[in-house]
């Protein structure tokens, strides 16, 4: 298998490496069911979580993944931009570098930060979300979840619903699912779907009722509440009227349609709480799969 040094996006990540991630994640998922969850795979290695943007869930997921692999973990979180502190991004990295990290997990609000850092460090860089650009481990865990449930990705009809314009999850999922032969469509308010996305062989829907009919997988994105203040959408109640997965829409789906959400869910905005008992278990399983996927990613990169 071709080894890779960094995980920056899915575009430049070979399919066979992704397949390997799924394979390794499957065995780690089994490990996670044991009473003793720790494996010694990364003993003696250091993983630095470098989070320039606030994040709880993804950071905890990476932190636990590293700990279950017996790595030493350092969390470097700051909500204040390094620039405001008078230190350049690269200086921050140079400081981290002196801690001799083996893997640096980066999250930032600007597209491209993991790319920039990867040029200046000996460590492997994992993109944990860079602005509106990419979130490869989220897409990997989504694909992994679908693969476990459906046995395949090829030929599946996948619909992503919500704020496509600002979503790194949408971009990475489109990249990942199409790579494995799934047909991806997007649905949401016109102001949050750039018209030129159709150049990507992605079907665009503005009508959720029309879009949901024959889909195998529906990924509901979290809508940022501030979008209504910046004028992209008139109000959350109008958004709910057009794009919420409510009881009526839920009952029109194919029986085996998978409903997923990267979390945290705004219940009664993206998804009605009336169907929570039906959809929440899978969303929680995504979180569990996320742990296994991140363990697999850290493990495979440390082998590089």
């Amino acid at each position, binding site marked *: 298998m071709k080894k890779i040094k960094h995980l920056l996006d899915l575009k430049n990540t070979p399919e066979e490496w992704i397949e390997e991630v799924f394979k390794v994640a499957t065995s780690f998922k089994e490990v996670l069911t044991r009473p003793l969850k720790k494996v010694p795979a990364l003993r003696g290695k250091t993983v630095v979580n470098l989070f320039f943007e606030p994040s709880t869930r993804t950071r905890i997921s990476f932190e636990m993944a590293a700990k279950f692999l017996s790595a030493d973990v350092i969390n470097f979180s700051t909500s204040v931009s*390094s620039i405001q502190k008078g230190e350049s991004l*690269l200086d921050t990295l140079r400081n981290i570098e002196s801690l001799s990290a083996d893997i640096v997990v980066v999250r930032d*609000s600007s*597209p*491209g930060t993991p*790319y920039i850092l990867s040029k200046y460090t000996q460590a492997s860089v994992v993109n944990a979300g860079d602005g509106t650009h990419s979130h490869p481990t989220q897409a990997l865990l989504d694909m992994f979840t679908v693969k476990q449930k459906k046995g395949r990705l090829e030929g599946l009809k996948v619909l992503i619903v919500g704020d496509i314009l600002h979503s790194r999850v949408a971009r990475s999922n489109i990249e990942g699912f199409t790579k494995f032969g799934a047909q991806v469509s997007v649905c949401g308010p016109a102001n949050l779907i*750039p018209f*030129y996305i159709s150049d*990507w062989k992605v079907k665009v829907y503005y009508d959720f009722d029309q879009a949901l009919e024959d889909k195998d997988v529906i990924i509901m994105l979290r809508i940022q509440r501030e979008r209504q203040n910046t004028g992209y959408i008139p109000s959350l109640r109008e958004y709910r009227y057009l794009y919420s997965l409510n009881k009526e829409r839920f009952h029109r789906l194919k029986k085996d349609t998978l409903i997923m959400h990267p979390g945290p869910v705004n219940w009664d905005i993206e998804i009605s709480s009336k169907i929570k008992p039906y959809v929440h278990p899978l969303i929680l399983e995504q979180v569990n799969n996320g742990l296994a996927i991140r363990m697999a990613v850290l493990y495979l990169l440390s082998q590089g």
Partner: protein
Amino acid sequence: MKSLIIKGAKVIDIINKDFYKKDVLVEGGKIKLISKNIKKKNSRCKIIDAQGLYLFPGFIDLHCHIREPGREDKESIKTASLSAQWGGFTTILSMPNTEVCLDTPEKISSFVNAVKSDSTINIYPCGALTQGRKGQKICEYALMMKEGALAFSDDGNWIEDSSVMMLALNYLSSLGGLCISHCEDAKLTWGPGRDDLLSFKLGLLPFFELSESLSVSRDIHIASFLKARLHLTHISTGSSLEIIKKAKVQKFISCDTCPHYLILDNSYLEDFNTNFKVNPPLPSEKDRKTLIKGLKEGVIDCITTDHAPHTLEEKESSFLDAPSGMIGLQTLFGLCFKYLVEEGLIDIFTLIEKITINPARILKMDSKGVIEEGKDADLVLVDLNEEFIFREQDILSSSKNTPFVGWRLKGKVKYTICGGDVVYKE
């Protein structure tokens, strides 16, 4: 009297699109004589053996940024002058968006005095169009022109308020002044990308082409209504060009673009190197081709550098935080000759007119931009056959923010002569 003979160069004739091999005698800062076999008159007369070299009028840049006054650490008049003459420029126009905004006659005057002591080439200040570049109140154009302001611009900002723009243009044109407009409706600039799939994939939100074309259109409407002179700077999209093309039946509209919009496109942003971050952003490939066509057809009058020095610290930040701009005085000619002329996209005469006679006409500098007897002896001798790699140690600017380090350029400046003095010799 000090004199200089340039012997054996191929002298450009832009009007007739030709080169002729003649000697040029320079005396008292002027071109005294152009003829075959000019003989040395006295021992004080210097001679440049220019066999094999091409003689062009000194290059003129309508748009650069010098960080004086305020941020001389990024670029002072002195270092800008050194970079400019290395790149073949003898006249450059410095934009007013310095830390201390050039918006009063006093500030213009002190800038002009600093140029006198620190620069060996002609550096002219462009005054602010509105006080503090806030887009609200017009400046004292007449007094500023008296002190040496050559044009007026709020570069970096577009004047959003149409009434202010109308008042500024109307008043300025009555005084015979030139307005240079940075066309960008900031509300339609959501991010540092373009409105295309490539930028979307990179997560770079769009600088909509409408941001430029709408503002171009508004400014042209006001200028046409007033019959006022207007120059639109760093044009970067095909849709703007279409509007400008129609408007150019009126002789008082002109525009420029920069080498990075002609040679690079937004696919260079794929590894998020902040040295490629400019404003307007790098164009789509389609727009880049349209711009080259516009250059050829004469819709675009000039090529400018938009030379924008930034410190390493500033550029070593994230793509969103990093400031826009790249330095360009040293690389404009070598890039355009190698990647436009040698590639057969435009001819050498088209390139030279865009950086000599055309900007001279726009600035109403009758004595510059051509090689004729009686004109200013602002000249540049270039070896068009010399290819070279542009190296970091070649950079004379105080800032090093250029993506072109390591690039192969062609056309090396051997001598730069300004006002009859050899100010640069390789």
